[in-house]
């Protein structure tokens, strides 16, 4: 097990390294942009551009620039261009908002996803099942950047049921915190609700056909007990796996569009701002932060799997 975990972690570092190189290449090398020219502003003289190049090291060779940037990542000195402020601070400041959004949405999608999945599984084939299946697929099919403004426009502006989002820190006012987050939570959760209910439904149907469930029934356990104790419990394992991966992805950046539309100043919001300004340091910071969460939760899921299923450990590759 130790060996598996250590290898998985080493692979993780490799992946993060690759992510950093790709982000650097895509944002620094391919666009053939000299950030100094953008920074110098609309009235720039060649001398000013040169000074800025020297100040930021844009005149160094690309490998040197990459090395400098990665050194700054590790020493926490990564600085955005405009304004010239530490990237770490902004990311750390953004985490509470992003976590609030992600955790709240996750609670909602798990609760409703499992509830709907359970209901449609025990009524499999019935009209309720069909309706729920239809609804969940429809939920998956709506682009979030359409759903969010529509919800905001109708529920917040037209009907004034919810406040215009924006993040109110929990420490400041827990009630307002929740009230402001309800719309974004549901927006983010909606797709996952549909998806999780489908996963749970299909797992439950599979489990219901297993021998031990029949045995349990034969023993005379009530249908509800059979369902909750045996079927549901055993169907949850893959759901939890999925949840690990999804949750990582959500913290990592699922929320970019949601945060931007609802003006929640989390990490995704910062990423949106950085991309708009096309500034490499914050983009690098956010990309590594995001990749770290994705890779970490992937690894955790793999390790959990390996723990549950030793065959995986014997496999040559640690990816499954």
């Amino acid at each position, binding site marked *: 097990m130790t060996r598996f975990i250590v290898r998985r972690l080493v692979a993780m570092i490799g992946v993060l390294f690759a992510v950093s190189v790709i982000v650097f290449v895509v944002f620094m090398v391919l*666009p053939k942009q000299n950030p100094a020219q*953008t920074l110098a502003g609309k009235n720039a003289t060649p*001398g000013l551009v040169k000074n800025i190049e020297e100040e930021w090291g844009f005149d160094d060779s690309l490998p040197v620039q990459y090395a400098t940037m990665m050194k700054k990542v590790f020493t926490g000195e990564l600085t955005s261009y405009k304004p010239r402020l530490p990237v770490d601070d902004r990311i750390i400041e953004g985490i509470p908002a992003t976590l609030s959004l992600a955790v709240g949405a996750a609670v909602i999608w798990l609760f409703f996803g499992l509830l709907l999945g359970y209901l449609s599984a025990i009524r499999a084939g019935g009209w309720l099942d069909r309706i729920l299946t239809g609804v969940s697929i429809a939920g998956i099919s709506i682009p979030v950047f359409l759903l969010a403004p529509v919800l905001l426009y109708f529920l917040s502006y037209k009907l004034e049921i919810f406040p215009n989002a924006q993040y109110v820190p929990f420490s400041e006012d827990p009630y307002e915190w929740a009230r402001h987050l309800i719309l974004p939570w549901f927006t983010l959760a909606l797709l996952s609700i549909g998806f999780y209910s489908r996963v749970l439904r299909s797992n439950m149907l599979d489990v219901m056909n297993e021998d031990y469930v029949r045995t349990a029934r034969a023993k005379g356990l009530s249908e509800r007990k059979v369902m909750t104790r045996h079927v549901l419990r055993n169907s949850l394992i893959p759901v939890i796996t999925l949840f690990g991966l999804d949750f990582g992805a959500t913290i990592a950046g699922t929320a970019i569009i949601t945060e931007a539309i609802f003006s929640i100043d989390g990490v995704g919001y910062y990423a949106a701002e950085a991309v708009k300004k096309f500034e490499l340091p914050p983009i690098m910071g956010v990309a590594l932060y995001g990749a770290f969460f994705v890779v970490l939760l992937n690894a955790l899921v793999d390790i959990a799997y390996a723990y549950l299923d030793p065959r995986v450990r014997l496999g040559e590759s640690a990816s499954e």
Partner: protein
Amino acid sequence: MKKLGAVIAVLVLAALSTIGLAACGGGDDTSSGGGSGQKGGTLNATYASFPDYMDPALSYTAEGWTAMADVYIPLLTYKHANGEEGSEVIPGLAEDLPKISNGGKTYTLKLRPGLKYSDGTPVKASDFPFAVERMIELNSGGSPFYLTIEGAEKFSETKKGPIPGIKANDKTGEIVINLEGPRGTFTNELGLMFVAPLPQDTPIEDLSANPPPGTGPYMITKSQPGKGWEYERNPYWEKANGKAMPDLPEGVVDGAKITVIRNPQSQVDDIEQGTYDWMQNPPPSSRYAEVKEKYEGTQFRVEPTISTYYFWMNTQEPPFDDVKVRQAVNYAVDAKALERIYAGQIVATQQILPPGMPGYEQFELYPHDMGKAEELMKEANPSDTDITVWTDTESPNNEAGEYFNEILKELGFNTQLKIINADNYLTVIGNATTPGLDAGWSDWFQDYPHPNDFFQPLLAGGSILPTNNGNFAKFDNSAVNKKIKELGAEQLGPDQEAAYKDLDKEIMEEAPWAPYGTRTLSTFVSDAIDLESVIFNPTFGHYLSSFEFK
């Protein structure tokens, strides 16, 4: 709109390239303190984005200038008034306007006595050269304005002071500035925040997260880049500065809290619902008509700016090296259509200088006439018709670009439209190595109300640069170059204004651009605020000190 964050982005229009916003506002020239409302209260306001920097030496956007106008006062400043009256340069920390001698090369000013920064430090004459040096050392985008100061150019390379062209006497408060040559715009430039004096222990680094003390009626007490910032009254205004500068307003509200809300739709909702008192940026195009109709005169006011929106054509390469082709394009572009595309937020013009700028006088060389355009095209019969058309991603500029693209297609060109991220746009089209710079969209907002600020950077042959080029049309006409240079050295007067007017026409006859309008911005406040008293200055935008609750 093709931006991250999206709904969001209509916004920043101004923010991006705007500097200084003009007024000339609806005839109702309310000057400071015109209202009869309550003193005190905290203004709860929103900006659509955090300023580029919250450091007076670095900020070069409308948001930044608006945010800091009542915090950092330069030696000279602009009158706290709407419209043309607001274009007037008045003494700030200096006792009087500069004495100009030595053939326009020497500027002498005297600091008012008894001034203090918001932390209690007394203001010294030598704080001015310190501020100039700090700004140059920080490689500020504003530094090119001040490189004509003797020795400043060298200082910018070596970063070793002092700059010999500035002499400051802390005892007498006298400041003498020597320029390498006469510069007609220098008085205007002394009124910009780039050179607002700062205490000499101010660190030479970007202080956006922790703005340095200033001399204005308000001070920034908290700044969270990306999220917002807060103001309180400067305790030394009442004790010292207010008495020393009685002609500057003391401000009505006790403080302000600014929240950045990137979604302008939300901003409008919030103002309508009274959650916030004022939004700095205009409502998004889609809400503009509705807001204007509902609130004009009570909570909403249109604010003209000193800006020109135009399509440029590369005059040095085919097909646009032929003046007939360029004139054809001018006839073909329909400013009426563009007014609609901007949802009524531009006013059609067909010349380089916008209304509100000294030297502006209206003329219309190319009334929309598609037949004439086609005729000219036939005469010119350009051989190379494959062109690339450029615009940025901000709505409605992207739509204006699409419109221009379609017009050029109608004229028989084979076009390819390229839409570039707004924050990179100027860098991309200002870089000579970018392939296919044939024609495209651009705009220009004044840095300060002086016509030279349009001609020199945008149309002088000397401004054609390999990178950060501002003369996108690559217009290089020796007669025009000479006139720009001569006029630039002179102080602005009626003769000069007339000469600028002729220059405007002379250039438009060559048609390097197809200008189509001047932008309007707006003041939009909640019903708790007295709209009458709010001042929108052409250079600094809304003054915080002018807001008051009803």
